[in-house]
């Protein structure tokens, strides 16, 4: 870690003693806290074997967790594809030279970035059926909501990425006779995508987590199947919530690790800049949101 070495010297004998003492004190306090939580849960009878036993039975996994996980991944996968497409289209539209394209595109992006996803899903699920005179399934309510929201955030990420590229890139492309579409497709978007990869993947993690909102419109995703339905059958809501949380954490950590790997792999082909410039400076205004 580069940060940890910046702030303090290599520890000398006294610092080593001090660090050890602090480690022990904090470690003991932490263990005390864990023990206290343990006794609290024990008093509330949350640690009895029968509450955890369902997780050793295959039925729990085949009937609740795996179908829930599958539904989550289905909504997240489609949401990711659609929001990446939405993001690229609206980023390009917002950068357009034609004001009649760029202004509406900007307004749409700003609007959907500001509206809570839950509000959007509620509108699509409960409100839209009145407008289109037919039902909207929970699946599409979740996917459309995820696409509009995360797509807008991604649009800003792509736009910042494109704007952070040196002007010479586009100029050179025009100079060898490319048209605007080609410049975007072949020169600018690939570079912007690579520069913004960390933000894009963080946003995809946000998207995956946000599928949990499907719970509120009874889309049978992991939270619904794993915490609600499972706990309704076995009365073990706390153990169920813990198991489901662990599954989410594992998936998202894998996604983040994948992003790190991808970044390292692509970074080798880029000219190395001085260490302190990590991200393009005007890109810092775009943060993953969720």
């Amino acid at each position, binding site marked *: 870690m*580069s940060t940890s070495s910046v702030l303090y010297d290599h520890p000398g004998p006294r610092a080593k003693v001090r*660090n050890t003492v602090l480690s022990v004190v904090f470690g003991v306090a932490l263990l005390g806290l864990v023990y206290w939580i343990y006794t609290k849960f024990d008093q509330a009878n949350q640690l009895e074997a029968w509450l955890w036993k369902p997780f050793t039975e295959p039925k729990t996994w085949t009937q609740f967790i795996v179908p829930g996980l599958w539904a989550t991944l289905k909504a997240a996968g489609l949401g990711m594809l659609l929001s990446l497409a939405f993001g690229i289209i609206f980023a390009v539209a917002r950068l357009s030279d034609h004001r009649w394209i760029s202004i509406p595109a900007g307004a749409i992006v700003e609007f959907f*970035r500001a509206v809570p996803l839950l509000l959007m899903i509620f509108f699509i699920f409960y409100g839209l059926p*009145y*407008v289109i005179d037919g039902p909207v399934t929970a699946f599409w309510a979740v996917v459309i909501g995820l696409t509009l929201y995360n797509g807008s955030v991604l649009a800003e990420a792509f736009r910042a990425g494109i704007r952070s590229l040196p002007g010479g890139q586009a100029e050179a492309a025009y100079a060898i006779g490319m048209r605007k579409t080609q410049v975007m497709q072949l020169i600018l978007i690939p570079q912007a995508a690579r520069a913004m990869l960390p933000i894009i993947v963080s946003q995809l993690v946000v998207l995956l*987590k946000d599928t949990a909102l499907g719970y509120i419109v009874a889309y049978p995703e992991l939270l619904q199947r794993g915490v609600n339905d499972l706990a309704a059958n076995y009365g073990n809501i706390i153990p169920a919530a813990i198991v489901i949380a662990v599954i989410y954490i594992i998936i998202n950590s894998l996604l983040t690790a994948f992003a790190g790997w991808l970044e390292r792999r692509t970074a080798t082909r880029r000219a190395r800049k001085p260490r302190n410039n990590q991200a393009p400076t005007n890109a810092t205004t775009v*943060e993953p949101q969720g």
Partner: protein
Amino acid sequence: MHVFTDPKNFDAYVSGFLWILKLTGASAATALVLGVLLAAMRVSPVPVLRGFGAAWVNIFRNTPLTLVVFFCYFGLFVTLGLSLSQDLDLNVFWLGVIGLSTYTSAFVCEAVRSGINTVPTGQAEAARAIGLTFGQTLRIVVLPQAARSVIAPFGSILIALCKNATIVGTIGLMESSNVMKDLINFNGDAVIQIFLVFAGTFAALLIPTGYFFGWLANKLAVKR
């Protein structure tokens, strides 16, 4: 606009957004303190502290907020009997604040940590050279500079927090998204207006906030 001329609906609309603002305010303050503490832990020389900070961030950043809020309600309140107020709404409100600030603190921590990364190594080296300790280096030299570079990320976090506050509705608080759902259910003929009013209020609150933080970040940026 007949929906909102009914005083009952209008009051529900106002109180829904008041809940959102209160949730945002209380959670932002808590998450800020917690997040800065966690960031200090993550860059500290003590391995156990670093590990604790890292575990906290990885757990809460990767768990859906809905599940965190759920856990506050079913875990802390229903199972462990932690009651924070006699008033039912206030109890849910405070449980929501716990969930929101726990979740948000992980993001604050990461923002502060990346802010610390933007401070040139020479600054900390100079601080150490004149004999400042780790705590002093962090407090007097590094954090003030880092603070200026984390304004923009903080703006994003605050905006996300305000939107995330609607998730407390899933444990029964009548905040704006729940109010909107109810209004839609009773006024099927005006769903578009209802959505535009609620979404528009969020947009009117948050789009200027975003621009304000962008402006502030530019104004206060450390010129290097």
